[in-house]
C-alpha cells in the first residue's frame, strides 16, 4: 500500500485525470483495514467494503485484484493479481504490473496493454447459478457477523463457500476467524489441491511482449 501511494503521486503528477480507488474486502471494517490505510498515509480514494460487494460486482475471487476503467466507464483490464511489486525476493508479487499501468496512464486507449471488449468479456469470471447465490449467502453471513451472531455467520459463510468454491475471498475471510487463520493449513491445503488440479491461486498476469 505505501508503494501504491508512491506510484499514485508519480502518475497523478503526470495526469490529473488518473485516480486510484482502493477497496478493502474486510468484514472487520474500519478496525481491520483502517490502520493499514492510515499507516500508508493514502491520498487516493480508500473504501472499506465489509460485504465484499466490489468482488461480487466485478466477479473477482481473490485479493489483490485490479481493474482498469477508462474515462467512459469501459473496463480496459480486469481480474489480475495486482501487486505493486515483488515481496520477499519474489516469493509473491510482481514488478511487471506497475510499468503497464504507467503506459496506460501515458497513452490511454493507444496503450498496447488496453484490452478490447472481447478480451475483457473473456476475462470476466463466469459464475454458475449456484455461485450467483453465494453473494446473498455471504451478505447474510456478514449481517449476522455484524450482529455478533457467530453461529449464523458461520452457517451462511460456509454456505457461500459451498456455493462458490472458486472464491478465495469467501474462504479466507471465514478462516480468519478460525484456528489457523486466513493463511494457515486449511488455506495451504486448498492452494495445493487447486494447483494439483492444474489451477492457479491468482489469475495469471498476461503481459504482452514489447513492454516499454
Amino acid at each position: 500500500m505505501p508503494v501504491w501511494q508512491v506510484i499514485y503521486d508519480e502518475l497523478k503528477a503526470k495526469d490529473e485525470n488518473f485516480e486510484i480507488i482502493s477497496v478493502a474486502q474486510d468484514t472487520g471494517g474500519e478496525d481491520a483495514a483502517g490502520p493499514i490505510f492510515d499507516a500508508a498515509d493514502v491520498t487516493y480514494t480508500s473504501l472499506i467494503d465489509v460485504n465484499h460487494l466490489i468482488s461480487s460486482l466485478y466477479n473477482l475471487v481473490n485479493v489483490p485484484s485490479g481493474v482498469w476503467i477508462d474515462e467512459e466507464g469501459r473496463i480496459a483490464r480486469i481480474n489480475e493479481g495486482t501487486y505493486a511489486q515483488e515481496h520477499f525476493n519474489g516469493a509473491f508479487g510482481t514488478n511487471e504490473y506497475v510499468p503497464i499501468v504507467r503506459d496506460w496512464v501515458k497513452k490511454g486507449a493507444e496503450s498496447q496493454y488496453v484490452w478490447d471488449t472481447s478480451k475483457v468479456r473473456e476475462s470476466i469470471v463466469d459464475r454458475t447459478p449456484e455461485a450467483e447465490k453465494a453473494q446473498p449467502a455471504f451478505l447474510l453471513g456478514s449481517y449476522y457477523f455484524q450482529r455478533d451472531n457467530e453461529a449464523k455467520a458461520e452457517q451462511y459463510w460456509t454456505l457461500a463457500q459451498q456455493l462458490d468454491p472458486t472464491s478465495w475471498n469467501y474462504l479466507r475471510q471465514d478462516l480468519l476467524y478460525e484456528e489457523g487463520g486466513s493463511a494457515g493449513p486449511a488455506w495451504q491445503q486448498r492452494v495445493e489441491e487447486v494447483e494439483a488440479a492444474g489451477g492457479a491461486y491468482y489469475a495469471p498476469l498476461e503481459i504482452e511482449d514489447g513492454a516499454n
Partner: protein
Amino acid sequence: MHAQLKSLCFGLAASSLLAATAAQAQATTVLYNERVVEIGQTLPDANDLWVKPEDLTRINDFEFKPEGACYEALCVPVLQDRDSDMYVTRGGQGWFNVTGLADKLQQAYVVDHDDGVWSFGTMPVKRQSFIRGGMAPDFELNDREGNPVRLSDFRGKKVLLLTWASW
C-alpha cells in the same frame, strides 16, 4: 336481502381472518447490496416474500405501477384485477411477491426463515452491460468519513480499481 347479508357476514369473517394472519406476520428484514430494509408487515407464506407495494421501492428501487413492477425502462407485467403468483389482494390490501419478481429476473436470494431475513443478490438485468459489454458496474460505498462514493463520480477519469484485504 339474505344473499346480501350472507356476503356481508362472509366479508367480515374474511377480513377478521386476515387481521389474525397479519398480526402473526413477523417483522422481516431485507438485505440488498448495502441496504438493510426493515419491513413492518408481510403476508405469511412459507416460500415467498410478499410485501405491500409501497415497500417494494425501499427494497430494490422497483416501482409498482398500473403496468407492473418497473425499474427505469424495464417493466415486469403484473395482473392487478385478480390474484396471480405475483400479486394478491387480501381484505383490500395488495401484496406483491418480491421473490416472484426475483425468480422472473433470475436474481439469487437466500433466506433465514427463523429470523425472517431475506438476502438478495445483484439483479442480472443490472449486470448485462458488464457481462456482455465490459462496462464497469457502478457502485456506491461510503468512504471512511461516511460520505457516499460512486464509481460514476469518476467519469472522465482513468480509474485503477484495486481490491485488497487485511487478512
